[in-house]
Every structure is written in C-alpha cells, then in structure tokens.
C-alpha cells in the first residue's frame, strides 16, 4: 500500500504526461505480480464492488473527526471528493501500513459480506492508523471511481515500457472481461492463449473532428463519405458460433440486444463488424433519446422491445474468415463487407450497411452534411480510401464533420459546485428560457462545459455574490447572466419541466452583451425541433 500510495502521490505531483508514465513504469517494475494486476484493474475502472455504502462512511468520518454530520457534508460539497474529504478531516498520523495493495483489496472484497459493526471497526481503525495519502487511497479503494488524471492509455504505455510488449497488443489484452481477483499477471499480460481471443474485440479506431475546411483534405477521389450515426458505437464479433457485442466503453453488452442474437448462426464465424447500434421504432431510425430507453435497462420487457427495437448499422469489417483485416485499405474492407451484406439480405436480420455517399466535389459533401438532421445523423464521416484501421484516436485518415449545433440564449438560474479539478468552484449550471407569456423562466437544460477557466472563475465569483437561496450544494441565483447554449439535438419529453430534452447541451459563450429580457423562449426552442 505504501508503494501504491506513493505512486498516487507522485502522479498527483505533476501535470506532465512523461513524468506520470515514468512514475507508473517504475511502480510496475518493482511491484509484486498481484499488485500489478490490481493496479491495472483499478486504473482501467475494474474495481471490486463497493463494500460499504457512502452514507455509513460519512457518518463514521464525522464521528471520528468529532464534527457534526452537516459540517462533514458541507465540507464534502466544497472539497468535491468523498475520499479526499475523509482523508482531510480525520486527525493526522505519520504512520505507514505494511500490507500490500492486493492484501487490502482481498480484505475489502471479503468485507462486503460482514456486518456493519465489523465494517465500522475495520474502516475506522485504518483511518486512524494510516497517514494522509494512504488514508486517501484506502478510502478511494472503498468508494471506487479512481479518477486521478491517468488514462488507460497512459497506464498501457507505462506497462509497455516495463514489459517490452507492444502498446497496441497490450491494449488488446487488457480489453474485455477479466477478474483481477483470480487472473495472474502472467495470464493477463505475459502469456498468449488462443481461447482468450474468442471474445476479444479490437481497439476502436476513433476519428478527430475536422479542423480545417473540408476542401483542404485534398482530392475528393481519395476520400469516402458516409453519415455519422448517432447511436452506440459497437463491435460485433461472431466466432465459433458465439456472438459478442462490445460497446466503445469496452463493455460486453450482448445480452442487452436480443435482436442481434440470430447473428451467431446467420453470419459466418470469424467475422468482426464495426458499426452503430441505432434505435429503430416504426421501421425508421429514431433519436438518441429513443435509444436511452434501452441503455442501462437490466430487464427488457416485451413491450419495450416492440416499441423500441434496435438495428446495427455497419460501416467496417475488421476480421473476415478469422483473418485480421485491419492493415487492409478501407475500400478493400468495405468491398468484402458489401458482399457479406448482400449475402445476408434475404435473411431479414436487423443489420444494415452504412451507405457510402457518392460525392463528386467537396461542395456536394457540404450539401450532404446539411441533410444530416433529416437523415437522423450527427453529420458526416470522411475516411481516406486507403486508410488502415488504427488504434485509438489518431489524426489524418478519419475525420468527423459534425453538423453545426443548434443554439439558444438562456438565463443562468441555478449553480452547483463541480468535482475534481473544478471542486470548490461553481461550474455546473442550470439554464432557463422564458415561458409563453414571458413572465416566468422555465428550466430547460444543464451544462458543465464550454467556458474557459478564467470565465468560470468570474462566473463563480458572481454566483457567490448573487445567491438567492441554498439547497445543499445547489444555489439559486439572481436571473441576470445570459449564455448561448449549444446542443446536438432536441426532442419532446414529458420527463422534463420545459417539455423538451436536449442532447449534449454545453455553453458556447457568455453573452455579456445581452440582458435577460433578450434571452430566448420555449417557443423559440420548439421551432428547432426537426419535423
């Protein structure tokens, strides 16, 4: 634990990527195999189930630090991280722990089954005995969500430096489902086993947003254009009569989409498809909001499956007849994909090809982009015809050219403190629009991003001086500031007070030139809904 806490302290002490990787690589070099596996698991968000609920943690922390619970809660709102708050309020000691990280995790897994008295003794004894950083890490392991400014990519890079294994191969090995409690470092990282590869997806290739004029990409003949679908990016694998559906978050979601289960027998073995899961109510592509009714649902009712079925819109073929096609040019992969799709056409499967849009000029591309909302897409994908299928987000060969967002001017009405690097700053805002008679402001969206740090500081200071009422971490503020809010889509919603749900709302800019009377109304919002 001492070494792991020391690693976290080092990662905390620098903003430079190279130094973070160096610290991680050094840790991996010296750590035991068990600690290595657990570190990989934690930094790739595979934590064990939470052994103690946070209500109890708060209660015990306030008792141990001899402060009332409300004061602990207020401190938590301000610090913005529960484990950090606990580490800060509990009386300090300088002592270390000799137990290893993996010993702690085994104890925490066992702890889940114990009664509350036992849990309390275990947790509070450790709080008393560990120094600040170890206490913070210990508590973070309990509360989970280890976000400390180290992406999985950095972790993989460090592991690659330590083991000498290629970074892309490591990324591939670490994907998917594995249990840190049972797997060995040898099995997870070092050894190659054929059976492991049955369900294993390939790392996704992600596109960057277009930064220049599309015409600057060069000759249109070199590029392939298709729509950018607004669903869940997924990889669908058919191997040895088994079907595996992965989401981009490297989550196995096969069970959530029973519509796809016939693929296991109807699509040839040794096939891996890259495509988008899209809602398909009334035999047409729906909105992302339709899809949300399917996401996160543990049990799928028959009614829901009938109301909101899904389809797979495929755009790439990564494996064919068991061969990895990723080094083949895009057009070649597409040609095989097209053949595959026509062989399936008679079978009435919920799988469709993402059509290539033939364009003779960049002007035609721009015109097609204008049709995006009508096509229920987010814009266009522009892929170089001879591009290989790369790993992760890479510039150069694939670009996304999204439609311009919808925008509206809204009034800031509520604010909440942020988390992480924005803790103690009011950065999470609620915005309102005028109702029909222009007398009342109605909440329509929340947004957390889009301002610069300097602007956030300014707005934060303003909020502190213009608070009307406090509701826990939330403050209502005098309606005075107007912001231009951008969003990707809008749909009617009975669950929202305004009657509308917006997709990915964010702040475009602070309209310091506008008074609240000049903000938009709900009717203005309604005119933005596509027919």
């Amino acid at each position, binding site marked *: 634990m001492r070494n792991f806490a020391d690693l976290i302290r080092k990662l905390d002490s*620098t*903003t430079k990527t190279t130094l973070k990787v160096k610290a991680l690589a050094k840790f991996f070099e010296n750590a035991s195999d068990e600690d290595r596996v657990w570190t990989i698991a934690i930094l790739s968000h595979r934590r064990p189930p939470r052994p103690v609920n946070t209500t109890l943690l708060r209660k015990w922390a306030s008792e141990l630090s001899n402060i009332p619970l409300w004061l602990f809660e207020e*401190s938590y709102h301000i610090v913005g991280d529960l484990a950090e708050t606990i580490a*800060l309020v509990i009386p300090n000691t300088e002592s270390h722990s000799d137990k290893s990280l993996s010993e702690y995790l085994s104890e925490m897994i066992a702890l889940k089954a114990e009664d509350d008295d036992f849990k309390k003794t275990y947790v509070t004894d450790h709080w008393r005995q560990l120094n600040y950083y170890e206490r913070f890490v210990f508590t973070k392991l309990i509360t989970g969500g280890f976000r400390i400014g180290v992406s999985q990519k950095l972790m993989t890079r460090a592991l690659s430096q330590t083991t000498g294994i290629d970074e892309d191969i490591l990324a591939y090995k670490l994907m998917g489902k594995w249990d840190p409690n049972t797997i060995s470092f040898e099995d997870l990282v070092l050894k190659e086993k054929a059976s492991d590869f049955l369900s294993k997806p390939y790392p996704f290739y992600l596109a960057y947003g277009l930064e220049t004029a599309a015409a600057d990409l060069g000759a249109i003949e070199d590029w392939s254009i298709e729509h950018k679908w607004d669903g869940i990016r997924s990889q669908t694998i058919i191997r040895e009569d088994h079907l595996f559906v992965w989401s981009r978050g490297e989550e196995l979601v096969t069970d959530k989409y029973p519509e796809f289960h016939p693929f296991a027998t109807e699509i040839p073995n040794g096939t891996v498809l890259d495509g988008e899961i899209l809602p398909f109510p009334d035999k047409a592509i729906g909105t992302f909001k339709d899809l949300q009714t399917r996401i996160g649902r543990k049990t799928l009712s028959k009614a829901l499956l009938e109301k909101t079925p899904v389809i797979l819109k495929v755009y790439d073929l990564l494996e064919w007849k068991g061969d990895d096609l990723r080094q083949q040019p895009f057009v070649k992969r597409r040609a095989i994909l097209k053949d595959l799709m026509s062989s399936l056409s008679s079978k009435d499967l919920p799988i469709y090809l993402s059509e290539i849009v033939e364009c003779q000029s960049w002007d035609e591309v721009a015109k097609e982009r204008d049709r995006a909302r009508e096509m229920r897409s987010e814009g266009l994908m522009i892929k170089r015809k001879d591009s290989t299928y790369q790993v992760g987000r890479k510039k150069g060969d694939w670009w996304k050219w999204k439609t311009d967002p919808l925008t509206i001017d809204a009034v800031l009405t509520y604010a909440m403190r942020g988390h992480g690097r924005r803790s103690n*700053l009011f950065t999470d805002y609620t915005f309102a629009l005028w109702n029909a008679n222009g007398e009342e402001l109605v909440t329509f969206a929340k947004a957390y991003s889009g301002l610069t740090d300097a602007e956030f500081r300014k707005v934060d200071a303003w909020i502190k001086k213009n608070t009307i009422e406090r509701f826990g971490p939330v403050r209502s503020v005098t309606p005075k500031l107007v912001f231009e809010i951008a969003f990707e889509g809008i749909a009617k919603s009975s669950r929202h007070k305004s009657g509308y749900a917006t997709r990915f709302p964010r702040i475009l800019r602070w309209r310091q030139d506008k008074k609240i009377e000049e903000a938009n109304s709900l009717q203005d919002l309604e005119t933005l809904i596509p027919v």
Partner: protein
Amino acid sequence: MTKPLLVFNKNGIFCEQANVYLDPWYPVDRAIISHGHADHSRYGHRKYITHHTNVLIIKHRLGPINVTGKAYNETFVINNVKFSLHPAGHIIGSSQIRVEYRGEVWVFTGDYKLEDDGVAVPFEAVKCHSFITECTFGLPAFKWTLQSKVFEDINHWWATNKEDNQTSVLFGYSLGKAQRLLKYLNTDIGKIYTHGAIENMTEVIRPMVDFPETTRITKETTKKDLLGNIVLAPPSAHGSTWIRKMVPYVTASASGWMAFRGARRRRAVDKGFVLSDHCDWQELLTAIEATGAEKIICTHGYTEIFSRYLREQGYDARTESTQFEGESSESETKEEVDKAS
C-alpha cells in the same frame, strides 16, 4: 438599546463614535489599516493609521499618502474611543485592531494566523467582548502542517529539481508569502532569483528582517543563469510570457488552497505546498476561545458554515459581508505585477 460600537456599512467597518473606519473599501476620511494586502489597504483615504512597519509597506504600494505609524499595544484615543494595534501574525506589520469605548471591547482581526512564521511578530490573543474574525479556511478540511516540515519539503523539492537539471519556480504572493518562503530557502542548494514585484517588496522589508541574498530577474538574466536555481514569482506570473525564460522548469505553489487536489490541478502547478498565512480550522477555534468573546462576527471565508458551527458551540455568532478576499487575490494587483515584470 445602545448602538453597536462597530457597524458594517457600505464603506466598511465603521466606528461612529470616533468617525473612523477599519480597513474600508471605499475612500473615507480616516482609516485604521490592519495590514498591507490590497483588499485591506486601499487607495484614496484622507488619513491612514497603521503599524510602523506597515507604514513603509503601504507607502511603497500606495505612493505618497498621509499616514501615521503606531507601535503594537500603543493606545491612541479618538473622541473618547481607545484604539490599539496588536500582532496578528499574518504577515510582517499586520495588526488586529482593538476598539474600546465605555468598557466595551471589540477586536477586528484583519487576517491572522497562530503559527510563529519567524518574519511577522507572532499573534497575541486580546480579550474582548465582540470578536470580528476572518475565516478564510473555516472548514475542518483545513489542517496545516508545521512550517518546519513544509520547508523541509520545499527545499527537498528544489534539490531534486536541481539534480534533474530543472529550474524551480515557486509561486507566492509578493507581500508576505514571498518573504516567508525566502526566509527559509536553503541557499546551500543554489541561488534565489526573484520576480521584480517580489524583489521590490522585499527591498522595503529587508532592513527589518534577515533574509538570504536574492537576485532580481532582468532582461539580461539568461536561462543558463537560472538553471537549477529557484525563482520566486507571484501567482499571476504563471502562464505569462515572462516565465518562458525559465525553461526547463518545474512549478509549485505555496498556499492554503493547495490542501485540495482539485485546486492544485486547476492551477496547473506541478506541486502544491500547503502553506497559509491564515488560520486553519483549529487555529480559528483556539483563537476565538482565547479572546473570551461571546459575540463573534465572521467576515470573509466560509462564513455561513463557520458561524453555524460556532452557534452550535454556544456562541452568539453571525456573518457580515465585506469586500475582503482572503487568500484568493491578496496582496498585489495585476498592474503592480505587470509593471515589475
């Protein structure tokens, strides 16, 4: 009911009986000033009264002003109201202001801390009935470490950076924090370079305190001169073009806010040292108890939370809003820093 001895009005904390303001934020006739930070000592008052040491500081900051110096514990009477200044331990020349009229005693802390930092005269508790206190860090999440330990860490950080062939850039406010840092930097490791705003302020204070030698950074200073040495700079120099001269460098900030990981990340400094010239949670409680006061008025900081806690402890505590800003923007104005770059 008689009128309170001190009231909060639009200009600041006002003693009507003496027609005097304490640290007013708009121009007034007569102002008693607790210390030299910009949010407490502002432009435009006709007469200033402050501690002898702070006279030099605010003259440097505000230019030619009409100012009278007083010693600590020296009583001066204005229209039957007895005033005196007492060490606040916040920065050099900082005072608490004691106000007494017809047996009733009020104390206004300005800003303060209890730990003896070796530069400022240490805080002395003053008995009073009503205590007007800052509570910049009035949350139980704030617990300072002894400064000897913090300076060990800072010097260790500098030495490590030097081994890695990097220049260390340490941010601290040009009045107060910078001199406190300067005092304990270990010159066996290397040379101390200063940003102009810090050097100017240190020149004013140097006759009163024994500081190590410093070198002002000028246009002629080269990267090679700086390499492996330490640079003291005001926080607003972070991200400026001025700092490019230091490449390759590592940054650190010394402030109470560095207790929060989020604050460290937000400021994008590599390292945060938790070092404040304000009281932490326990120091505030200790100081309040030592005054024997029953009435507590919380001015800047986590006022609502802190006063609610005090009320639960049996104090008659309330909040007043002021224009003091605590550790967020203290001491220098942006123009002062820009001018000295």
